[in-house]
């Protein structure tokens, strides 16, 4: 078993990912500068795209990487949104300052929620999360100060005086409401960057490869020392934090909340699942593709009412049948291109000097 001293190393970077990194930096700079060049309605569209992207990335981390297929993430959207409303209306918080607190509130709620739903697996887990979300909706509908079942609005002018809004108003020479849209857009962009950055960091870390092993084979993962329930708990609480903060941000922008809207399974989970599945579940790139497809479809068909939902469903079925790994999965399967590479490739040692086939293969 003796062998000459060898130098081994691990590489994750690929040519495609290096090129992409440069393009991504330019895209982010352009996105931050967008309010200088585009109209208010475009900013509102971009805000919508970014918020759905954050939700999709969070759900993808949960379902695609940790195997926790939840249909109850609206629980955390609503909880975050209601926490923000409570802080603003009852405690006089600035809405923007309330965002991180709302995220923490959602994360704290995720702990007892996990206590119940982590006892369930697969389809039972999915139903369990949905039931919990419904319970949240019914409970928050009892909160009379925040409007009970009919909901309430942020006090007049609150969003016009938020941190940064007067400054943006002056800088762009626009009305307060337009300035508030720009501020929430920038926050959504920051949240999207932070979410993607966090997930990418997590997946490249030791925890990421541990999650992948759990997803592939739970029994074997535990046998090599992977604490599966701890990893799943970390992901569940982290996504609750991101989802809760996102929920709060969305409702800063709309400034009006009701339990039915804030805990809507269609808006905050069904569409999100559609985006992730169409784009490619279990890849960081997938949700980006999915959100573009979803946005285009919504603009084309949203006026057709229930036909719109039927079309979404049909497209979902077609993609699942013919591209079960989503559009990005189809693309990466054919080209091998990864924009966010997480594959650890061993290089060096014998691998550089010899490539003979394993004779026992």
């Amino acid at each position, binding site marked *: 078993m003796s062998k000459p001293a060898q130098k081994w190393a691990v590489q994750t970077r690929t040519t495609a990912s290096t090129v992409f990194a440069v393009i991504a930096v330019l895209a982010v700079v352009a996105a931050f500068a967008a309010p200088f060049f585009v109209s208010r309605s475009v900013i509102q569209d971009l805000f919508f795209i970014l918020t759905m992207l954050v939700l999709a990335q969070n759900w993808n981390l949960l379902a695609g990487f940790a195997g926790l297929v939840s249909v109850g993430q609206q629980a955390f959207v609503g909880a975050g949104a209601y926490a923000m409303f409570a802080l603003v209306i009852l405690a006089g918080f600035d809405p923007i300052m309330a965002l991180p607190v709302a995220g923490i509130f959602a994360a704290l709620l995720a702990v007892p929620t996990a206590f119940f739903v982590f006892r369930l697996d697969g389809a039972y887990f999915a139903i369990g999360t949905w039931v919990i979300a419904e319970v949240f909706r019914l409970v928050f509908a009892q909160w009379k100060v925040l409007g009970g079942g009919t909901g309430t609005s942020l006090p007049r002018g609150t969003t016009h005086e938020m941190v940064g809004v007067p400054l943006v108003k002056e800088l762009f020479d626009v009305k307060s409401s337009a300035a508030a849209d720009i501020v929430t857009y920038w926050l959504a962009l920051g949240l999207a960057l932070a979410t993607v950055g966090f997930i990418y960091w997590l997946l490249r870390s030791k925890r990421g490869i541990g999650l992948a092993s759990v997803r592939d084979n739970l029994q*074997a993962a535990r046998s090599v*020392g992977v*604490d599966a329930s701890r990893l799943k708990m970390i992901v569940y609480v982290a996504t609750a934090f991101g989802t809760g903060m996102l929920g709060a941000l969305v409702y800063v922008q709309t400034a009006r909340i009701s339990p039915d809207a804030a805990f809507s399974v269609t808006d905050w989970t069904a569409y999100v699942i559609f985006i992730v599945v169409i784009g490619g579940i279990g890849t960081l790139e997938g949700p980006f593709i999915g959100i573009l497809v979803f946005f285009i479809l919504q603009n084309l068909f949203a006026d057709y009412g229930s036909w719109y939902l039927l079309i979404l469903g049909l497209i979902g079925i077609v993609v699942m049948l013919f591209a079960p790994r989503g559009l990005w999965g189809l693309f990466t399967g054919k080209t091998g291109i990864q924009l966010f590479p997480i594959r650890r490739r061993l290089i060096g040692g014998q691998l550089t000097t010899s490539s003979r086939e394993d004779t026992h293969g």
Partner: protein
Amino acid sequence: MPILSLSNVTKSFGALKVAQAISFDLEQGEALGIIGPNGAGKSTLFNLITGNIAVDSGRIDLEGRDITRMSAEKRCLMGLGRSFQIPQPFEKLTVFENLVVAGAFGSRVAEDHVTEACAEILVDTGLIHRANDLAGSLTLLQRKRLELARALATNPKVLLLDEIAGGLTEAECQSLVETIRAIHARGVSIIWIEHVLHALNSVVSRLLVLDFGKVIGLGDPEAIIASREVREIYLGIEI
């Protein structure tokens, strides 16, 4: 003090008794072989030792510490490594990544500290040329090697091997025996379940015979194989 000690370990699946008051000690640095007919409860015994299945009663100690109620992942951290009879690779990870998971989690160190060790295990087990291929693309024999390699990556004190020599050619079997001997020579205690008796006997110093979840023989391999009871059970099986 024995490194691993089982006393009265019992387990039933409904009416089926798969482990009946099993007791034995594995001494520090010992290599113990386990034989028995199909369905004797050999793999179940491994599952009980590693915590993949909970015992009904009895007690398991590792290095003098009671691990009977400990989770599988904690037992791995304490130094129990295992291979599965039916290979259980992480199919969507590469061969190298399979070992990285085991190395980084199994001995609780940072990921970049295990690169060298994992690469060397791949060289030793003859998998280095498939290092960057998906584990799901391996042949059955390579999957069995991966089982051994991944167990080694956790840096075990006690290594449980479950039928890793089945289906190998004579030459392959010989090279496997060499590998296991080298592991043993480094001080790793080994329990090896195997039907290929000559491979087993060239490594182990004691044999344990299991039948219907009961220990029916334990001792010197030659004496065990010569005993009438064992010959009856193994009638028709090549010795």
